[in-house]
């Protein structure tokens, strides 16, 4: 699998609020045999997840999603409580955890972020003299990235509040100043209605926050009918239908191109009957279009049933790019610099500026 197959999800007419544009994703019919529910956690701040080995993942984790592929329809997920419930200060176990029955609990976005943070987490694989002792002993640990909470992205809360959910809507694309910030898709319209507001508790990249804060209101792409060839009501109706089609095509090829056309690196997290849960990383090439990490559930034909993405900031892309290249050249500064068309000194400077100076022997 190298690209997202968004067959079955069609872009609907966008709704604009200030600098935020929300584009609904519609399904003609829901994905059969898969439902998503949400389970809320009592103490989202500083929640801890135990990963494989001794690794820990700490973040703001307000909820987890429970995927149910038993085909029995929606029901309360095991462990769901009404009201305040139990004070679960207990660390969560694993990013994705099988539940009794055909159920899987996973932590949306954190699953993808963890994949990004764990990129070459082990650190230098060969003890070249440039690398520090801690880097050789602990790898990149502790590896830290920051993001903004959806509620703190200006205007996003209002945009989501006044958004009119369409019949059959199964997802949404969030744009700030027309930069794609997040994609979210679920298998069933009812799931979407229940999860629409959870976008406020999602993580958004730095760029989206800045664009929403400083960007001017975006303009609506209003319909324009060419009235020269309209002779009857039928013509008028055809022209109106044409507008809907034109918008869909324009959106998919211009606005959402980075989602449709980018080749991603997928790794499977869990197999769930005919479905599979994946997380993916973008090619870390600098410059150009936005880079998104995310997770997706695909059906047996590889079509997307569930999707959630996070747009990396430029610095995050840069870090990924450096780590990928260093690892590809066995962490040898000279060879890596040569491959990047730079001198070792310059590469050292770039590593420092990317915030990875702890890896180097002489941190300055």
């Amino acid at each position: 699998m190298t690209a997202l197959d968004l067959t079955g999800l069609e872009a609907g007419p966008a709704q604009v609020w200030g600098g935020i544009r929300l584009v609904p994703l519609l399904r003609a019919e829901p994905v059969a045999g898969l439902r998503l529910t949400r389970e809320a956690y009592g103490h989202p701040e500083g929640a801890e997840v135990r990963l494989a080995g001794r690794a820990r993942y700490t973040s703001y984790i307000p909820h987890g999603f429970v995927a149910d592929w038993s085909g029995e329809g929606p029901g309360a997920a095991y462990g769901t409580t009404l009201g305040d419930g139990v004070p679960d200060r207990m660390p969560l176990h694993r990013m994705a955890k099988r539940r009794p029955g055909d159920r899987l609990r996973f932590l949306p976005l954190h699953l993808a972020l963890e994949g990004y943070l764990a990129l070459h987490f082990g650190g230098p694989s060969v003890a070249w003299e440039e690398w520090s002792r801690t880097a050789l002993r602990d790898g990149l640990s502790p590896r830290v990235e920051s993001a903004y909470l959806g509620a703190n992205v200006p205007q996003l809360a209002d945009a989501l509040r006044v958004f009119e959910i369409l019949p059959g809507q199964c997802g949404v694309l969030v744009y700030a100043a027309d930069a794609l910030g997040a994609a979210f898709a679920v298998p069933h319209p009812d799931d979407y209605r229940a999860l629409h507001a959870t976008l406020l508790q999602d993580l958004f990249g730095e760029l989206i926050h800045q664009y929403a804060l400083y960007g001017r209101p975006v303009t609506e792409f209003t319909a324009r009918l060419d009235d020269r060839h309209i002779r009857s009501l039928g013509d008028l109706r055809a022209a109106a239908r044409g507008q809907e089609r034109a918008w869909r095509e324009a959106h998919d090829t211009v606005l959402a191109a980075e989602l449709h056309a980018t080749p991603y690196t997928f790794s499977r997290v869990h197999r769930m009957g005919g479905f599979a849960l994946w997380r993916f990383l973008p090619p870390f090439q600098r410059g150009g279009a936005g880079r998104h990490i995310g997770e997706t559930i695909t059906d047996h034909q590889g079509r997307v049933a569930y999707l959630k993405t996070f747009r990396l900031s430029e610095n995050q892309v840069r870090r990924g790019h450096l780590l990928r290249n260093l690892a590809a050249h066995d962490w040898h500064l000279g060879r890596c610099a040569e491959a990047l068309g730079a001198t070792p000194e310059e590469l050292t400077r770039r590593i420092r500026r990317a915030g990875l100076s702890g890896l180097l022997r002489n941190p300055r």
Partner: protein
Amino acid sequence: MAQESCADLIAAEDVLLFVNAAVTATGQREFRSAAGEQRLSLAFLHAYVRVNYRRVYAAVLALDINDHNAALVIRHLLASAGEADAEEKRAEGRLIAARLAVMAPQRVYRLLRALRAAKVNNRRTRAIFRDWLAARPDPAFDAVKYRGGLKAATRHAHLPPVEAELGDFLFRPGRRARYAHPLLDAHRRAHYEQAAVFELPFTVAEGFAARHGIPRAVFLERIAPRTTRLERLRTQSRAGAVPADLATMPLTRLALYVLSLGLDERARRRGELTGALRAAALRAAGPHAGTWGRISAVLDDSYSSSGSGQKRRRPLAVALACHFLLEALASGGAYRGRWTSGGGDPLLARPFGATPLGMRVLDALDDRPERLVIVSDGWDNAPPGLAGEVLRVWRRRLDPERRTRVVHLNPVYDADGFDVRRLAPSVPTAGIRDAEDLPALVEIAQFAEGRTGLAELYSYLDRRTADFTGSSR
């Protein structure tokens, strides 16, 4: 029309804009704007029109503007008396008196308090309120039900109480051992006697009932004869309450009540509710019933018609009420209503989904109606702006002779635009608050089409003013 100057056109536009705002805006939260934004926007509009078109500012009191704006207009007119000459003041005084006479008393008392806070206490103000208080049917009832209001009014307008007993009741409670007026005495006894509670008006009795610990069901059952029509409507779902008589309810109020019920209950009481809505619509249509020819309507039941916490489902209720009213206005079954969601059962309408107004307008035009009425908040978003384009092309290419008359009624004031939101420049738009005013609003909306000038608009306002001040004498 050619010789009409630019200033006249702007004036006509300003007047219509203000009328639309005064009909729809209530200073409360709307779906898309907060209460503060609404009030700020409205305050500017009031100041702008009062300074530039004082005569019009007073004359809108004769139109079907809402009570919130009527109170604001009266307050500003009284506060800025110095800007008017003697003739204007006389006309304003007549309009204010006529408007106060039809306003709910609690709103008048609130207006008086606002005037007091603003330190407006000129001779004209005092005289107007003296006359209004003198015309109240029972001062003792006001003293019990609107005690604070009447007290403030008496004090502010320097009025001696009508009777000594009333003065003691308001200003020296506890002075008299008993009152001659039964209501005043009931209020005294209600402090210690449960039976006396049920002789008081509902709102006053509620407080005493809580103090005496009377169970709610018992209270509602025994207080029933003392409740007003709306109080009965509000409490009727509670245990012990007497069912309200739906047949006498005003149309929009009834629509709001219907929408407040669950879908199951609406389906169960379908016959009763539909009958009540039809009866109310016929009453509202009055002499116009059955005279409008073939009508098609596009009614907005998108998610935004759920209104806000303060105006719950108001836009949807207006649409529902318009549906039944237009049905009554159309001649013999020549009416077809189309909801934006595509639903066919108006009684089970619920606010959900986007607003594909353009497609519904096309559907409605398919019926070849004589009139097309669009009831929507003007946020056409699936796809955006299609309704305006469809109407523009229709007018320009397919119906240049204007066989179909199109009017857009908008229940939501857009604070940023200082007006209700329009669909297209070629379509006249009018604000609407109560569906009952629809015939009058359609008349006003014709001025917005730009084919009638300022002079006609002024003569229309004069006619309405004369009707209003003449009829209420």
